Structures are given as C-alpha cells and as structure tokens.
C-alpha cells in the first residue's frame, strides 16, 4: 500500500490499462461473433451455431485455431519489418482506446479517485488522429515486406486509400470542433449537455448531420471495411496486404481491424452522439432504471430461450448466463452504482449501435472499384466536407457576433 500511496498515478493507470485490455480483447473476440451473426441473419442464415449455445464459444475456438496453426515465414521476406508490421498495427489500434472517456463518474481504485478514462489529454482528439495516422504503416509495411505481388498491391492500395480518406475524415470533424471549441474528448461530451425545446438532446449530430455522414464514410474507408475493403479484395488480390501472414500474426491484423472499428465508433459517439449522455431528459427519473431493465429483459429472453429450445449442457450454460445477467441487473438497480453505470451503459449502447451500422453496411453494399473509390474520396467527400466546414464556420460566426 505504501507504493500505491507514493505513485498513485502509475498504479491506477496500470490497473485501468489491464482492465481495459481484458475488456477490449474480449470485446474484439465477440465482435467477430456479432458480425458473423448479423451478416448471417441479413443473408437468411443462422451463422455460428454449433460451438457452444448460439455459437458463443466460436471466438474461443477461432483463437485456439490461430494459435495452433503453422507460422509461415516467407524466405524472401524482409524479416524484421515482416515481424514488426502486425505488432505495429495491433498495438497502435489498442493505444487509441486509452484516450476514450466512457463515463463522467469518478471511481476509486485502491483508494485513489480517478475518472473512467486512461489518459485525459488536453489535445485528446489530436492525439487520436496522430495515432490513427501512423496506423497506415502496419498495413503498408506488411504489404511491402512480404515480397509478394498481391501483398504489395494490397499495401499500395490501402496506403493510397488511407491517405486520401484521412483528409476527408479530419475535415469532417472540424465542424464539431468549431461548435464545441475544445480538443479534449471529455469536454467535447460535456459541451453537448442540454436540450433543444426541452426534448431534443444538444448532440452535434443534428447541426452536423453532413459532417457525421462524411465522418462515417471516411471512417469506413480508413478501417478498410466493405464497401471500401479494396486492400483485401479477395476476388482480385487473394487477401491483400496480409496474404503471406498466417497463424497469430494474421490474427493480430484481424484484431487490429476490429479494434479500429471500435475506436472509430467510440469517436463518432463522442463527437456526434453526446458520448455518455442519456438520450432521454434527466428529469424523467425512471430513465435511471433503464440499464437494469435492459439486463433484466436480456436475462428473461435468454432464460426463455434456454428452457424452450435447448437441452443438456447448453441449457445449463444458457441458464448460468441468464443468472449472470440477472445479477448484473440487480447490481445496476443499486442506487449507489447507478451514477457510475449509467454513463458507460449509454456510451456502450451507442457504440454498439454504430458497430451494428458497420456490419449492416457490410451485409448490404457491394465493393467499389478502385477508380470509383478515389473519385468518391477526392471529388465528392472532400468538397462536401469542405462546404460543410465553410457553412458551419459562417453560422458560428454569425451566432457568436
């Protein structure tokens, strides 16, 4: 305890980093499950179903599979960079999450008060963009160092694409910055408190709807997802930049992609959807029991499903899971915990919705051609983002006069 008292920031940060890492890695695994399920239901399939009840153990099985596969090192590859690239991609993708604030509450870790964010940096948004801007290296270097035509083409495409869409991404956010006047992510959320007409929340998405669409389109391109997944277009390039990667190095690229999706969705939530703020007016006291009610409802649905459709071990597993959900619901209804849980609950709900939107796009849209992609980025997205910026700036100027 003496060490804790002497270095409070260090110890608290380490605890928060460990918790965030465990949560994120689990979330990454189950995001793959979520994506496969949603895409399957869009295409009238069941998706993963056999490994565990509702395929819930599928991510674990996939992880084990990646671990035990042969790790191939191409003889003509540039060894150092070949090994560096996946680490770079994955660690940069995880680093950005340290800047994301998920709630307003102050919690106590080992007796030290702290906020629900690892690094509350004053220029937080800039640092986030800084880290994502060097995320290109992971993909580009992987493509180059593999010494394979497909990888090189994939790497070239993705670096061109990421450079092009980064301009649109950054410009679309400037409108929000003009409205809020801060780079600090926590202050950005707090600036969106209040209501218009006592009901509509003062989220930046309403005045900045064009900015939001530009941001999200550019973000999908930045994370190399359908319909902008040209770097790994399997019909043309086998698997793009990670063609030569196998085993856990491939898994690292895979996880980096999902971690980037989570970061981008978190940032969209903070910038446009009011972060951890509740969408319903705070004067309605019953809204404080929404987190508990949601978990309770999920638990009831799961229990009903377990009783009706499953037998044997699966039934027991699902019953245990629903019991856990009931326990969480009970904890959420505890009045002392409500202020701590409410912020992260709304934040994660919004992030989950945006992630669903991501997967929805993947299930709906076909892939663009390369020239279409470049034309769209430079000739549509960039001018629209610029026009949005000019109009916003003018309105802010007139209103502030």
């Amino acid at each position, binding site marked *: 305890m003496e060490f804790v008292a002497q270095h409070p920031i260090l110890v608290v940060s380490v605890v928060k980093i460990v918790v965030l890492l465990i949560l994120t890695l689990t979330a990454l695994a189950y995001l793959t499950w979520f994506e496969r399920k949603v895409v399957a239901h869009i295409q009238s399939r069941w998706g993963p179903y056999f490994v565990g009840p509702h395929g819930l153990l599928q991510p674990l099985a996939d992880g084990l599979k990646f671990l035990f596969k042969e790790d191939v090192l191409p003889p003509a590859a*540039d060894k*150092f*960079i070949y090994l560096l690239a996946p680490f770079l991609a994955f660690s940069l993708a995880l680093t950005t999450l340290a800047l994301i604030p998920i709630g307003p509450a102050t919690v106590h870790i080992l007796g030290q008060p702290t906020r629900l964010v690892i690094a509350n*940096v*004053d*220029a937080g948004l*800039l*640092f986030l*963009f*800084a*880290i994502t*801007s*060097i995320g*290109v*290296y992971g993909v*580009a*270097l992987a*493509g*180059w160092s593999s010494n394979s035509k497909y990888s*090189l083409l994939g*790497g*070239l495409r993705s*670096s*061109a694409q990421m*450079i092009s869409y*980064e301009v649109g991404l950054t410009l679309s956010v400037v409108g929000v910055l003009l409205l809020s006047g801060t*780079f600090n992510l926590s202050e950005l959320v707090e600036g969106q408190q209040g209501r218009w007409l006592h009901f509509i929340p003062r989220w930046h998405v309403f005045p900045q709807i064009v900015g939001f669409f530009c941001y999200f389109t550019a973000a999908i391109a930045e994370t190399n997802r359908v319909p902008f997944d040209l770097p790994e277009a399997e019909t043309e390039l086998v698997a793009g930049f990670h063609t030569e990667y196998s085993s856990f190095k491939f898994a690292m690229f895979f996880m980096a992609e999902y971690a980037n999706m989570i970061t981008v969705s978190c940032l969209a939530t903070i910038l446009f959807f009011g972060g951890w703020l509740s969408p319903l007016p705070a004067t309605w006291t019953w809204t404080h029991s929404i987190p508990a009610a949601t978990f309770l409802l999920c638990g009831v649905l799961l229990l009903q499903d377990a009783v009706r459709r499953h037998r044997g071990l699966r039934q027991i597993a699902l019953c245990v899971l629903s019991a856990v959900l009931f326990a969480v619901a009970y904890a959420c209804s505890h009045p002392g915990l409500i202020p701590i849980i409410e912020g992260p609950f709304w934040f994660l709900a919004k992030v989950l919705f945006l992630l669903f939107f991501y997967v929805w796009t993947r299930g709906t849209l076909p892939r663009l051609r390369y020239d279409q992609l470049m034309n769209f980025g430079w000739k549509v997205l960039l001018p629209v983002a610029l026009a949005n910026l000019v109009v916003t700036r003018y309105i802010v100027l007139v209103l502030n006069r």
Partner: protein
Amino acid sequence: MSVELIVFFAFAAIAVAGALALILLREPIHSALALVLVMMSIAVLYLLLGAEFIAAIQIIVYAGAIMVLFVFVIMLLNAGEEERTNLSRLAHYAGIPLGIFLTGELAWFIHGVAGKLLSAHAGAVSTRELSTLLFRSYVFPFEATSILILIAILGAIVLAKKEF
C-alpha cells in the same frame, strides 16, 4: 534523477540512434522507418516540454503524412539497396569531419546561451493560446506560408500533369 529526466535521455538517445540508423542503413525503407522513429521521439520531447499541440502535429504531419508518402514512393518504385558511387565516397570522407564541426559549433552556441534557454522555458502552452498567437499577431506570416504551400501544390500538379 527525476522521471522527466529519465524519459528525456531515453528518447534523446532513441532519436540519435534513429538518426544514425537513417544514414547507416542501406535499404531505403529501413532508412525511412528510422526517420519515422526520429520524428516520434522528437514528438515525445515536445510533450516533455508541455507542448501537447506541437507534439500531436509533429506526429500527424511528419510521421503520419510526409513519411507515409516517402514509404509509399519507395514501395511504388520498389527501390533496392543504395548504390555506392564516387560522390557518395566523397561524402563518406568529407561528411564525418563536417558533422563533427557542426556538432561542435552547435554545442558551443548552446553553451553560450544555456542560462537564457532555461529561463525561457515557460511551461505548458495551451492550444488556445497558441492559436490566438498564430491568428492574431502572426496572421500575415501564416497566410504568406499558406500561399507558398499553395504555389508548391500548383507546381507539383503542373510537373505531374505532362500533357495539357
């Protein structure tokens, strides 16, 4: 020794090592990556001075944009190992004395103004103060620079677009 001093020396050493690697490595892409390392460690040094904005911009502009273009071009040309010509041999022999001379000159200069430099360290500069300074007091140099960059962009387009 305080934590700040340890961090400073660690990243200063990384910066110097990166700069040496930039010159000594033969493969262009390794050199480019070494330069990225230098940029990043300089950004950390800015952070130590409390200049968050400058540090972030250093990473975004140099490591995230300019060096990505370097790497992109090296990949596109698929450049192999550097070749050694007579001129590079000349640089090899003339470079080391010249480098020592320049370092000595710099050290002598810094030694002369060391006291003033330490007192000028004003602490954290917020982004707001920086932008007020940039867009109020120094707006003319700022706009002049932007016109310069615009001209450079036009020049690049003219050079790249051969047929009119």
